[in-house]
């Protein structure tokens, strides 16, 4: 396996990359699982704050990104299971307390639960920011998520380059892998089993390319996985911000110059930022609805935990919970917060077993 470090002088042995033990790889993959998840509540808040039938294109774009984030969670769970490390999902520490930094990021921006609006889309662009050309892999305090995954990729390559490395690393049970055949549906692409360096690198490529684009293009390169090429997440959000679609002649460094994408920034429920159940302790009717949302959300995490840890069929049971969560979120979005500023309540995504 050719690694970047193998190109250095043959006289001095190359330094091992930051992720150079199976334990460190496991720890970083668990962080990756948390990062993938941490983007979902903010995206869902923006999506569910759009009333049915309004901002149709924008909401379709946001929804398509969320679907792929869920796929990424499954792929990271597959990576963890491939190296025999149980993915941990049902855990209070798994959920960020918004406003929050992306886990293990360089803390350059906070991620908040906001309704659809320019503030939310600006944050999403920061989350999905492509790595600059030649940016180094970063195993901690990362600048872009792609650089974090680059460090994970290096870790896989390094460990597999050791004598017997690949065999020693991929010792997870095949029955814990979630593939697209039975338990997963709903778009965003299909997950696939990870059982080798090749499939691990494919999983990492799928995740980062859907986010920031394939090889510094606008697109995710998914035609290589038997799917239709789509704009990467960053560029989908950029279309919403610019109010314009990309066309074939556009480049990643420029603005979209295609057809107009009509966005009505006022067509949304103005959810108060970063809601918390505790703010509504003296409003029992609202408090109860928020608690019900959080219990459903926590149940969903429990379902995912079970699905990722040996019972893939549980993933099908998680689907009704996801729908239920959506309807509950939309209900909360429409309830006046009583703050006197025209805001509405919104879902808080807090741990409630």
């Amino acid at each position, binding site marked *: 396996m050719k690694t970047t470090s193998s190109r250095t002088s043959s006289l001095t042995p190359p330094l091992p990359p930051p992720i150079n033990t199976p334990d460190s790889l496991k720890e970083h993959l668990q962080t990756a699982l948390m990062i993938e998840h941490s983007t979902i509540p903010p995206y869902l808040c923006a999506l569910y704050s759009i*009333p*049915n*039938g309004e901002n149709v294109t924008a909401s379709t774009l946001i929804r398509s990104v969320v679907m792929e984030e869920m796929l990424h969670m499954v792929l990271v769970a597959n990576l963890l299971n491939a190296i025999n490390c149980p993915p941990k999902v049902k855990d209070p520490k798994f959920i960020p307390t918004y406003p929050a930094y992306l886990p293990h990021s360089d803390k350059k921006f906070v991620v908040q639960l906001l309704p659809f609006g320019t503030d939310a889309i600006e944050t999403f662009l920061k989350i999905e920011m492509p790595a600059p050309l030649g940016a180094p892999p970063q195993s901690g305090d990362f600048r872009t998520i792609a650089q974090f995954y680059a460090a994970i990729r290096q870790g896989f390559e390094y460990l597999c380059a050791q004598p017997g490395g690949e065999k020693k690393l991929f010792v997870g049970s095949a029955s814990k892998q979630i593939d697209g055949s039975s338990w997963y*549906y709903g778009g965003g692409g299909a997950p696939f089993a990870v059982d080798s360096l090749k499939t691990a690198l494919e999983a990492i490529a799928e995740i980062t390319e859907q986010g920031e684009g394939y090889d510094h293009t606008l697109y995710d390169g998914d035609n290589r996985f038997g799917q239709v090429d789509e704009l990467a997440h960053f560029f989908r959000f950029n279309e919403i911000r610019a109010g314009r679609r990309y066309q074939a002649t556009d480049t990643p460094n420029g603005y979209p110059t295609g057809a107009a994408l009509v966005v009505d920034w006022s067509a949304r*429920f103005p959810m108060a930022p970063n809601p918390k159940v505790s703010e509504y302790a003296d*409003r029992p*009717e*609202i408090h*109860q*609805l928020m*608690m*019900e949302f959080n*219990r*459903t959300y926590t*149940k969903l995490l429990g379902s995912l935990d079970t699905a990722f840890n040996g019972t893939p069929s549980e993933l*099908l*049971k998680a*689907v*009704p*919970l*996801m*729908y*239920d969560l959506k*309807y509950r979120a*939309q*209900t*909360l*979005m*429409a*309830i*006046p917060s009583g703050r006197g500023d025209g805001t509405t309540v919104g879902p808080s995504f807090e741990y409630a077993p």
Partner: protein
Amino acid sequence: MTGFSEAELHGTAMAKTYFALIPSIVGEALFGRLLAIWHDSWIRGKGDEPLLEQLVTDQILDDPDLGPIARNVASLWYLGMWFQLPAEWRNVHGAWANDVTFVVSPQSYTEGLVWKAIHTHPPAAKQPGYGSWALPPVTTEDAS
């Protein structure tokens, strides 16, 4: 009157639509009277369920002018439909042009309280997910 909390009613996102709809059907005067008497009952019966119920029954439901409207408002919340007021009411108050039986909007159908009350989803909307019919319904019963 619906058995659902104020927060749940707001949660349907239909409140503004209905608030504008009712006076457009029965006129501002009757709607204003209904609101004023409801407000009076609510203030006097606050914190005392049986008293509130009594006041609403006496002052609103048993009132020949307001009773039919109030019943229609409750069924509006439940079914997202306005039902033409009874003939006796129309003989007294006249046949208002908009007082016909109709479904208010696609949203009013999906947001009807009836679906929540019977723990299901509106057919052809708010789908609960493929295969969910083989699973027990989602509940959020408080363990405590």
